[in-house]
Structure formats: C-alpha cells, structure tokens
C-alpha cells in the first residue's frame, strides 16, 4: 500500500471547514439513517407489547419480557436451524470455491479468466431474487433435479428435501463470493514454492496440502466466516425456498412485523441477530489480526 503518510498536525481553520464539508453529509446520513434507528430499536426492544397496536405505546413500561420470551424452544430451534443450515452451506461453498479459485489464478488463459471472473461477478451482482427463483425452478415441482432427489429417497414435502433446497440456494450465492475472496489470497502465493516442493520429489497433491492449503488457510477461515455471516442474515432464500417450514432469524423478524405487528419482539430478535453478526465479525477480525501478526 502506497499510503501517503503525513505528520499529524493540529487542525487549522480551513482544515476543519474542509472536514465538515466533505464528511458532514455522510455523518448526517449515518447518524440519522443508521445509528438512530439502531438505538431506537434497542429502546423499542425493552418496551411492553400491547396487542393490536402498531409499535409500542408512547410511555410503555420498560421490560425484558421480549428477550425472556425468546428463551423458549421455538426460537432456540430457529437459531439452531439458521446456524446449522448456514454452516453447512458455508463449508460446501468453500469446498467448491477453493479449487475453483486456484484454477482461476493458476490454470487458465487470460481470456478464460476474464470470462470466468465476469460470470462470477455477474452472479454476485445479480439479484438474490433471481437466483432463488432459478433454484426453485431447478429443484421445484418441474425441476430437472427433482427426479434425482426422488431417487435418493427424498420426497418433496419432507423436511430434508426443503433443507437441501435452502442449502442449494445459499451455496449458489456463497460460491462466487468465496471464490473471489480466495483469489486474492491465492494470487499472493509464490508459485515457485510449489515447483520447489515438486522438484524435491513431493507429489502434486502433497505439495498442495503442505503449501497451498496452509498459506491460504487464514483467508479460507475468513472466507468461511464471511459466508457464514451472509448465510445467517439471509432473508429471501429461506423465505422463498423454505416454504414456511424452514425459518431463519430474519424470517421471524419479518413475521413479527407483517403478521402480528409485535414490534417490540421483532426489535428484540433484531438485537439478538445483530449481536450474533457482530460476534462472527469479531472472530473474523481476530483471525485477520493473527494473520497480519504472523
């Protein structure tokens, strides 16, 4: 990084005016559109819920009831579903993304590389809605994968079938993101290391196992966690593909809002979800800090 370093100096008057001019609008949007809603969400989550009202009553009593209610089995199973389906999808995503990233970095012509990268970036930028619909069309009642799943003994209305379709939906979004993340790490591995290992007699697979894998391991860990964060905050994929039987945390928030208008409870779940997301990000940051220090 060719970061230009300046000695820190006391803020002079024009500097302060420049800072206000350049950073002011972003600060305003951030404070009004992001920080205030989150603080309000925290306050709302501590308000008593009055059925039949939109939002809490003006001076509703403070209560931890909304959180207390989450400590039941129904919500625990939603949390568990979110994590295990998200976790499985994140891992399958890496299993495909890792060799794919290596292939793109080392094994293909520049032309093919541009095409493959273009395809992956198109997938990243195209609507999650389209991908979800495409998965439903492929695995659903007329889909070409349906007979395949049927021969495996999975019936369309079984929980396992729906789980697999939701996982497929998540993996479809995870592979492109994970591949593009891993490409960065693979590019910084010196290919001569592999050549050296092989000319010293190591078979190719062993050379990859003892060079490519360890050198890209930190990137693999953060890519897995980034995929996991994506999966646990997924909304459209479980909503459409889960057919109401597989619920993620975000789906429960939406139900609290749209079906029963229990905003305080929705706010409490939002805060739990936020805490979960921040915890995963903290782990990523920790993993990256270790990578830098090594």
């Amino acid at each position: 990084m060719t970061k230009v370093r300046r000695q820190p100096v006391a803020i002079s008057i024009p500097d302060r005016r420049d800072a206000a001019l350049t950073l002011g609008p972003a600060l305003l949007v951030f404070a009004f559109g992001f920080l205030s809603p989150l603080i309000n969400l925290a306050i709302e989550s501590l308000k008593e819920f009055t059925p039949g009202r939109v939002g809490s009553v003006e001076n509703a009593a403070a209560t931890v009831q909304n959180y207390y209610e989450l400590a039941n089995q129904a919500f625990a199973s939603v949390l568990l579903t979110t994590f295990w389906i998200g976790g499985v999808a994140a891992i399958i995503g890496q299993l495909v993304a890792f060799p794919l990233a290596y292939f793109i970095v080392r094994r293909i012509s520049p032309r093919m590389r541009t095409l493959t990268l273009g395809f992956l970036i198109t997938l990243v930028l195209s609507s999650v809605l389209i991908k979800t619909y495409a998965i439903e069309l492929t695995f659903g009642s007329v889909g070409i994968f349906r007979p395949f799943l049927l021969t495996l003994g999975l019936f369309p209305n079984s929980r396992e079938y729906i789980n697999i379709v939701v996982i497929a939906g998540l993996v479809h979004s995870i592979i492109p993101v994970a591949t593009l993340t891993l490409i960065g790490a693979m590019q910084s591995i010196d290919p001569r290391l592999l050549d050296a290992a092989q000319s010293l007699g190591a078979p190719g697979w062993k050379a990859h196992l003892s060079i490519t894998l360890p050198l890209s391991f930190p990137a693999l860990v953060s890519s897995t966690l980034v995929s996991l964060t994506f999966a646990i905050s997924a909304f459209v994929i479980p909503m459409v593909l889960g057919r109401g039987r597989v619920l993620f945390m975000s789906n429960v928030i939406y139900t609290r809002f749209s079906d029963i208008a229990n905003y305080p409870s929705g706010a409490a779940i939002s805060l739990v979800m936020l805490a979960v997301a921040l915890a995963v990000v903290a782990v990523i940051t920790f993993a990256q800090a270790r990578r830098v220090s090594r």
Partner: protein
Amino acid sequence: MSMRSLAARTGDRIAGSLAYGVIGLGLAFLAIPLVITCVMAFDARTYLGPMPPPALSLHWFERLVSQADILASLRTSFILAVLTTALSVTIGTAAAVGLARGNFPGKAALTSAFLSPLIVPPVVIGFGLLLFLSKAGITNGMARLLLGHVIVTLPYCIRTSLASLLGSDQRLTEAAMVLGATEGQAFWTITLPLMRTGVVTGAIFAFAISMDDVSISLFLSDPSATTLPVTLVSNMRAAFDLTIAAAAVVLIAVTALLIVVLDRVVGFDTVVGQGLFRS
C-alpha cells in the same frame, strides 16, 4: 520408473480429477439454474411444465409488460436506483476525500463506522428504519426507500473511492497546487480523475444493489412506492408462474450490461483486488 513415483503420479491423477470434478460440478451448479430460467422464460405453454419447453414464444414477456403493478414498480425501482447512485456517489466520494486527506483524531474509527452498515443484517436495517421513520413522522415511501438504499450503498462508494484515492499519489495534487492551481482546480482536474475507477465501481455497485434489494425494501415500500423485487417476491409467494422468469431474464440482461461496463471502464482485476462484498 520407480514404484514411488508411479504411486505419486496415480495419487496426483486421482487428486487432479477430483479437483476438476468439483470445479466442473460447481460451475455447472452455478450456471444450470440460470440457463433453465432463461429457457423457461420463452416457454410457449401457458402453465409451468417440465423442461424442455415444447415450443418457444414471447408470451410471458407480453404478460410481464401488460401488468400495471410490475411496470409501476419497475419505474419506481429505476428512479430509486438512479437517485440512490447519485446521492451515494456524491456523499461517498466527498467522505472518502475527507477521510483520506483530513488530519483529525479518530479517523480510523470514523472509517470503520462508515463501513459498519455492511455487517448489520439488512433485515435489521430495514426493520430499524421502519420503526424509526414512523416515529419521526416520515411516511413518504420514496423518501424512506431512498434513505434505506443510501445507507447500504454508501459504504461501498466510500470504500471503493477511498481505496483508489489511497492507491494514488497525493503528491500529484500537491504538485498541481504548487504550480498555481487553486484547491478547486486541483480537485477537479487531478484528484477526481485519479479516483475514477473507485467512483465508477462504487456507482455500479450502488445501482445494482439498489435495483436488487428485497430485504430492506420489503419493510419500507408502501402502496405509492413499491420496488420491482418486492412486487416479484409477492407474486412469487402468490402464484409461481413464468412471468417471473421473464422478469429474471430482463434483470440478468441489465446486470450483464453493468458487468461489461465494469470490465471496460475498470477491469475485473481491479474490482477483485478491492474486495467486493458485504459480509
């Protein structure tokens, strides 16, 4: 040939074919659903039947453009995406300049704060905004949507602009000013062109994200302002027919167009180097 190298070569062959198998299956898994969607959009049947369609026709597209609610939401989505992009790019570029050039305590903290909407689940942002804006008395659907979309696209614009600014040499701007350019002239003729790739990347991301968002828009839409993805989701839940496939083809075409622009103006390697994603 020794036994050892023979075993090694067999191992390599197995590992190699395994890796190629995974890559092939993976790419097929990514491409097949999209191909199926594109083919099915041209299905001549009036119901959802199995692949392949017996005949092709454009009637799903005709149905798509004959639905008033879809056209209205497409219009809303487009206007919203243009406004979001304009606002996000302007505010984000300014903020990036401020962050890169300013000398003040807490700069690093401020940078992470600006990027933090990326790590908050979109549903939480949408729900939080809904509650807050209702309390604040802002009921205009378009205004709500615009704020929600700017919040999630701004971090991208700041990040890509900041990356290209830090990657460029600030001494060029200083040289221009030493040679007599005013601060404004130096900014418009030197600094901004140097930031071009970051600004363009940010703009394309902002447009694509705004066009596609469901999680936030579902909370903030109202009957006067509903975006295309929101209309499509409710159609999808009501009746699963192929008008959505037709809509998907249109949206894929728009995205592919953006990607071509991205490659021409910026180049994929730059984009991949900057890291793309909301985590």
